[in-house]
């Protein structure tokens, strides 16, 4: 930060007014570093200025980054009304710029002793004859605004006045710069606080966008989240103009500047995005022509891009004035993005935790209800058996057919109930495997003995690699899973066919869907048949619970297989060709 330069101040003669000015200057400077400019601070600074140069009234006007206008932020002296306080000086248009606008554009002070003949003057008050105006510059010499003071006397101001006002404007520059840093710091802390306390991701992003756009002065701020299934960026939150688009997919991964940021995990900062080859020009806050500086940073957590936060400004129509995003802007936005990343990760973790608690409550509930249902079914079975005995004991000559039918039907119903119960239990228990090193071929033989029919039209084609390493198995559960696949294969070939079972060793990485390979070496087990196979459109659905094309059971069969395989840290897939037959593959890590 540059300290005000007092060396060229007019010290001689030291009048009361000069002494007063020096006192004011000192007080205000101390305050600028401490407080930052409130409206009151700028007004007092202005009053000190009016007093120092002997003017009548004056105003502070600050540059608005997005619109390129000068807005009056503090006024002093007589005759101010709400209306003239609301004066806006258009920097972009020459005729309406005024002396103040001119000063901001040139970055130099300006003095006139006869406004009626001045080429820049725009009249606000009738009595003005002289006007003096000095620019307020940031520490990086960016124009922040202007301090302008008038007088009804002609030729009221001289170069000494100019020097005094310049000193004050430097104090204002320091104060505004300090304030800018404070605002950002405060906003960042606010964002941090917001994020730590929030679990709802949507709510959280809304709040961040709101704070970022107002407090950080990123006028138009939008936040996109990456949908992993579709690889689309979805607009999640925006500071206003795109509000109706929230929730809609906006860019494919890699598409447009925003998509590029998501794909590459790196920020983009450009002054004229339209000139960029990656520019796509849709889903923007304002029309193509109006878009100026563009800044987008990725939201990253654990090396994974979760989304993009993007800010835009309107194009500056004044060639002298650049409203490009600075290094500081990019740093601030990156900080915000990394905070969001961490917060989203937190929210997801907590979500997972809550879900797993719910799941364990659900497991407990289902275990209890299955236990009770099982007991009832057992008791009913006893009654049905008794019914059978009683029917047998009916006196000779009684027609027993109807009784036997009812008894048979009851028995079937109970058996069906028990099948459902078993399927349900296997589904719930599928995930809880106790793994012991086993010979997988032995488990295959045992399963076949239990499930493969002795007399059948279906041929068994067994192709086992006899030299397989041991794998960790829950024998009972694994046999249940394999048995399910075998029974499935048989049931889909009512007119005969074959069931192929092979085991082999696999020594390279595999990748199925989202799952990463967990081991270098696998034992792969395949169950194939000559049934109708699985249609391509159903391949990702068959392992979901309750998905079935058979009438038997609840439709939990393949989801039980999947649960068992996953609890063995293995992978399961179906790669058969529809019309040729099904091919289920189980990969178990060695």
């Amino acid at each position, binding site marked *: 930060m540059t300290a005000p330069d007092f060396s060229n101040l007019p010290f001689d003669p030291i009048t009361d007014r000069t002494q007063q000015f020096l006192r004011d200057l000192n007080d205000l400077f101390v305050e600028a570093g401490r407080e930052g400019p409130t409206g009151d601070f700028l007004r007092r600074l202005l009053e000190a200025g009016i007093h120092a140069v002997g003017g009548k009234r004056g105003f502070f006007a600050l540059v608005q980054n997005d619109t390129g206008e000068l807005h009056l932020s503090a006024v002093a002296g007589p005759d101010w009304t709400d209306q003239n306080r609301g004066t806006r000086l258009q920097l972009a248009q020459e005729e309406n710029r005024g002396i103040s606008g001119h000063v901001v554009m040139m970055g130099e002070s300006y003095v006139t002793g006869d406004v009626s003949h001045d080429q820049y003057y725009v009249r606000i008050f009738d009595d003005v004859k002289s006007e003096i105006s000095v620019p307020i510059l940031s520490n990086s010499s960016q124009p922040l605004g202007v301090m302008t003071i008038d007088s009804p006397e002609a030729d009221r101001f001289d170069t000494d006045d100019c020097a005094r006002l310049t000193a004050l404007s430097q104090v204002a520059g320091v104060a505004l710069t300090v304030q800018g840093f404070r605002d950002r710091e405060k906003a960042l802390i606010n964002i941090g606080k917001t994020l730590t306390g929030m679990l709802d991701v949507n709510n959280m992003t809304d709040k961040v966008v709101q704070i970022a756009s107002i407090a950080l002065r990123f006028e138009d701020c939008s936040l996109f989240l990456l949908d992993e299934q579709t690889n689309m960026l979805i607009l999640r939150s925006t500071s206003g103009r795109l509000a109706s688009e929230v929730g809609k997919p906006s860019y494919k991964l890699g598409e447009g500047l925003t998509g590029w940021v998501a794909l590459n995990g790196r920020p983009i900062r450009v002054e004229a995005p339209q000139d960029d080859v990656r520019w796509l020009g849709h889903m923007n806050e304002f029309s193509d022509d109006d878009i100026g500086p563009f800044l987008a940073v990725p939201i990253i957590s654990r090396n994974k891009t979760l989304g993009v936060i993007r800010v835009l400004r309107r194009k500056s129509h004044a060639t002298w004035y650049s409203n490009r995003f600075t290094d500081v802007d990019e740093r601030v936005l990156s900080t915000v993005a990394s905070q969001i990343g961490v917060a989203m990760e937190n929210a997801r973790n907590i979500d997972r935790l809550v879900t797993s608690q719910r799941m364990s409550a659900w497991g407990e509930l289902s*275990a209890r209800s*299955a*236990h009770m249902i*099982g*007991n*009832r*079914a*057992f*008791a*009913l*079975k*006893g*009654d049905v*058996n*008794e019914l059978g*005995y009683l029917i047998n004991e009916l006196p000779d000559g009684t027609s027993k057919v109807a009784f036997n039918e009812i008894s048979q039907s009851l028995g079937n119903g109970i*058996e069906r109930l*028990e*099948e459902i*119960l*078993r399927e349900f*239990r296997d589904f719930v*228990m599928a995930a809880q495997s106790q793994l012991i090193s086993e010979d997988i071929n032995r488990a295959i033989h045992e399963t076949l003995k239990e499930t493969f029919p002795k007399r059948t039209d279906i041929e068994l084609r067994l192709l086992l690699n006899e030299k397989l390493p041991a794998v960790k198995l829950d024998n*009972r559960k694994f046999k249940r899973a394999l048995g399910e696949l075998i029974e499935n294969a048989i049931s889909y070939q009512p007119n005969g066919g074959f069931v192929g079972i092979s085991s082999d060793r696999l020594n390279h990485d595999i990748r199925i869907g989202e799952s990463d390979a967990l081991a270098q070496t696998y034992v792969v087990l395949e169950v194939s048949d000559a049934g109708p196979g699985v249609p391509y459109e159903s391949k990702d659905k068959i392992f979901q619970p309750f998905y079935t094309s058979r009438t038997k059971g609840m439709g939990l069969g393949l989801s039980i297989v999947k649960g068992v395989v996953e609890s063995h840290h293995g992978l399961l897939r179906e790669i058969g060709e529809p019309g040729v037959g099904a091919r289920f593959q189980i990969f178990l890590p060695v």
Partner: protein
Amino acid sequence: MSKILIVDDEADIRNALKRRLEREGYEVDTAESAKAADLLIQAQHPSYDVVVSDMSMEEQDSGLIVLKDAIAHDIFTEVIVITAYGNVANAVESMRRGAFDYVEKNVPGIDVYELIAFKVSLAMEQRRSAVTTVRRLEEVVAKSDKLPESISE
């Protein structure tokens, strides 16, 4: 006559098992909890030949308590544990602690009552042979006990 105790907290199941086993010619008592079972076991002389007990009643593992009480009263009493909803871990534990066998209540397509009746008959057989073996041993020991006495005389 062979005596059986059935322990289950469900009256319907107690009755169904009782009816079924009485058809086999056994004398059957029933109890609705591990506590009630213990009272009957303590009061029974000669002791029950076979106890058929549900695993989860007052507690998840009440069956283990019945098992312990029955064996403590008479080491030759055979205990069959029945479980609903495949409480396999407890069933295996009961085998480890000396149960004769365990039977799952719900096995689709299998008449579990028939199965229980069959296992009870096996348990009876085992009990008989164990008792006979021990009696014979006792006789041998009794004879060998007398031998030194006769020498000393």
